[in-house]
């Protein structure tokens, strides 16, 4: 069977400009290990989402759709797409920034720490559960399930090849190459 090489390639064009450093560190999954003090470059590049909110949202999005083999860069890119929308929509910008503050408030109540500082994923998930019905949560969840999984770089990681017509389809590229079922 023709299987795919899922290793990250550093020379992809159009990849998030700020991603090189993040991708280099992709082996070590950040998640809850984001440092709380410094403002990372990618967060400073956002327009509508404030840096503190961005750091919280990044951990939130990782917890919504955790893939241990995806570096932060993919999640940052997804957040950047929502930031672009928020830059044109003050209501959304407010919802995201205030939502991040509310998430921290909920986190302090349940975990005695800001959201991103809670160490265990299970504890953060419990915080997310507590705000699951809020418009803020629904907006982030709904937008991120599209923005995260609509990245060709993520497709490659998950073993999806994307567009195929320009390669002549799969008629000569393994549409029927499954070899582990006898008599299939």
């Amino acid at each position, binding site marked *: *069977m*023709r*299987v*795919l090489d899922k290793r990250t390639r550093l020379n992809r064009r159009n990849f998030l400009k700020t991603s090189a450093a993040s991708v280099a560190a992709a082996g070590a999954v950040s998640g809850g290990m984001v440092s709380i003090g410094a403002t990372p470059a990618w967060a400073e590049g956002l327009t509508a989402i404030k840096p503190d909110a961005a750091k919280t949202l990044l951990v939130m999005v990782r*917890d*919504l*759709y*955790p*893939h241990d*083999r995806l570096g932060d860069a993919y999640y940052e890119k997804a957040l950047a797409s929502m930031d672009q929308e928020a830059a044109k929509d003050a209501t959304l910008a407010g919802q995201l920034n205030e939502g991040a503050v509310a998430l921290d408030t909920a986190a302090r109540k349940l975990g005695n720490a800001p959201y991103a500082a809670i160490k265990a*994923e299970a504890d953060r*998930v419990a915080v*997310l559960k507590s705000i699951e019905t809020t418009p803020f949560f629904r907006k982030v*969840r709904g937008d991120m*399930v*599209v923005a*995260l*999984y*609509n990245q060709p770089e*993520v*497709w490659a990681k*998950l*073993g*999806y*090849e*994307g*567009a*195929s*017509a*320009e390669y*002549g*389809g*799969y*008629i000569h*590229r*393994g*549409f*029927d*190459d*499954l070899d*582990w*079922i006898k*008599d*299939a």
Partner: protein
Amino acid sequence: MVAKFAMDDDGVVVVIGSGAGGGTLANELAQKGIKVVCLEAGGRHEIRDFVNDEWKSFSQISWLDKRTTSGGWRVAKDFPNLPAWIVKAVGGSTVHWAGASLRFQEHEFKTRTTYGAVEGANLLDWPVTLAEMEPYYDKAEFKMGTTGTNGIPRLPGNNNYKVLAAGAKKLGYSEFHTGNMSINSKPRDGRGACQQIGFCFQGCKSGAKWSTLYTEIPKGEATGNLEVRPNAQVLKIEHDAKGKVNAVLYADNTGAMHRQKARIVAVAGNSIESPRLLLNSASTMFPDGLANSSGQVGRNYMRHMTGSVYATFDRPVHMYRGTTMAGIIRDESRFDPRRGFVGGYEMETLSLGVPFMAAFLDPGAWGRDFSSALDAYDHIAGMWLVGEDMPRETNRVTLHATEKDKFGLPIPNVNFDDHPNDIAMRTHAYGRGSAVYDAVGATRTIHTPPYPSTHNLGTNRMSANARDGVVNKWGQAHDVKNLFVSDGSQFTSGASENPTLTIVALAIRQADYIADQMGKREI
């Protein structure tokens, strides 16, 4: 030479919609020398415009005008403004259909007789039998180049099919194969053979899949009798003092209004827009909407019992390679009430790319349970379950009480509640679907809820008696003899099969009837 007809030409047949029903009817009439103006709400995107990208394509071709939903169906919760996943473009939903072309079974035309009185269901026998339909099924299969008919070989099975077939065999199922697909397995009718591209739902880039966009419509245009006007959103059908329809009011993409006169009007805007148009065409003479003396316009909305089963394996599958609907198990489509429900269902392979898999696998889900399924994406096989759902009077398309579209007309609301029979069938189908994959070593199976409806049916149903439905056995309105319904909204019941072949067969048959009646000056 593509025809151009005058707005005041009252000799034309106006066909509203250019999909399986409208596009086929328009061509069939044009071939007979009848002048046709086909009004299509969407734009004309040719094969070269299609994109192998799920969300981009979705924005390009889908019907995205706002609709609302109500009722207990899960789609109303997950996709409150997207009850249906259909196409707004020349070619209609034949642009994104998978290609499955199955004949209805004899008993499926006689559901009231066969199933008896099912409480809470508005079952009715079709005024047409399988025997009457067979010659038209023959013509439809020949026209569409359906595999497994007319000596056309079936398509080769892809990886997703191999998994399905192996499971079917282990379970002892007897009727499974790569389907009756209107996708060329060999070059035919000026179109090439399937290149196993995948992306059948995004518009076939090779043209191997039959679509009215590049078959019926250009053939009709070549006669000089068919004019297709894209970006023409029909707002109202008008009638004369005798109650015969005589013109159609539509808006073009600049918002300018036009009135096309008509000798005959055929409505084929899919089962949400078609009843909406009839309801929006209410007048002093027809206060409850055009052709609605029965009160059945918009009622009996059906969308098939659906669901999907995705299964993870320890070895790779790459289900997305090749045709989206690559094979079928038909054994469960029989009538066998011992299973706890009437009607039957088909099991058909289906694959989604990563973007749609994320959106549709379990809408609203998040966390590791969800993301771990996507982590195994290339090890997943998938099938769609599609079965007969019960027509119910309360499952209906109505005009929204307050919300209006940009032309000031009420938008449609789609209300739907699963019938207990639908739920019993879905539960059974999920179980059998899982069993198919478990038989070949699935490590995890996931039961995916219904997608927004692709099979929208029944809202202008056929009936022998005018009090029971909207149109007669020819799709001709009981109340208005020069008004026809030509899409799936005329279905009396939904059957277990994908509807397109039957829509096309009915359109061919309707064209014969219209030509005959015009010749006799009956209409």
